[in-house]
């Protein structure tokens, strides 16, 4: 048990679970609004970045590899938010 608490992977997992529950609450319990839905997208891409950098260890990877996936995260964020806002939501 103490081993789990000493391991940073456990804290990353807890952050991911908390962010997932937050997205769900934003989607289910808060009145539909562009900002709330945009927050869901931002939280999802924050989770993606956590998985890339910590679980997939890209924070330790040589520059080009890390930046390819950082760029992918930004691109998908822009794609989802751009399409959402410019489609009349």
């Amino acid at each position, binding site marked *: 048990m103490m081993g789990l608490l000493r391991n940073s992977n456990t804290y990353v997992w807890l952050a991911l679970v908390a962010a997932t529950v937050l997205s769900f609450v934003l*989607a289910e319990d808060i009145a539909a609004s562009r900002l709330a839905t945009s927050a869901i997208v931002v939280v999802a891409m924050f989770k993606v970045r956590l998985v890339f950098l910590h679980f997939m260890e890209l924070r330790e990877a040589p520059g080009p590899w890390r930046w*390819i996936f950082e760029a992918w995260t930004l691109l998908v964020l822009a794609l989802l938010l751009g399409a959402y806002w410019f489609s009349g939501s």
Partner: protein
Amino acid sequence: MSDVSASREVHKSKRLAGDEGVWFFITADVAMFAVFFAVFMDGRSRSLELFEQSRRMLDPTIGLVNTLILLTSSWFMAMAVHDLRHQNRAGLLRNLWLCVGVGSLFAFSKGFEYSQKFAHGISLRTNEFFSYYFIFTGIHFLHFVIGVIAIGICLFTVRRNELNSRTTRLVESVGCYWHMVDMLWIVLFAMIYLLRAA
């Protein structure tokens, strides 16, 4: 230590987990999924009302459960890699079993969700939204099945071999692939289940 040599030390410690070939595959795969996301969002922008009505026919609680299953399985995989690096064979095997055990619940949950849709007469041909829903989550599910098989190969290899550079590369590579499966679901969950029209 001078700044230049310190920078060289940092550069030397940079390391890609797993096999570089697997990373080329992961890069191609996430590029393909980015196209899927664009196709879905394009369809959504053209048929906003249809997509919103269809989205409301999904059960977001199942999507939430699926996400929590994959996140937890991913955590066990990360713990397995941690044990691998510390030459903890028992911990590595235990966490790989937990990873595949918890991960397998995704198959049951997804199977339940698909069967519910079919029971309500919803299929790939129902409308554009459900075509994308079945195709994209189906392709993701195929990735999941390949991941489960790959973790099975890791378990087989670790049980029968010493922990050496070969097993390390195998487990790290499969680990990165498995985390990618988790990561893709995070986006699919937000985009398909949670993105509601304002």
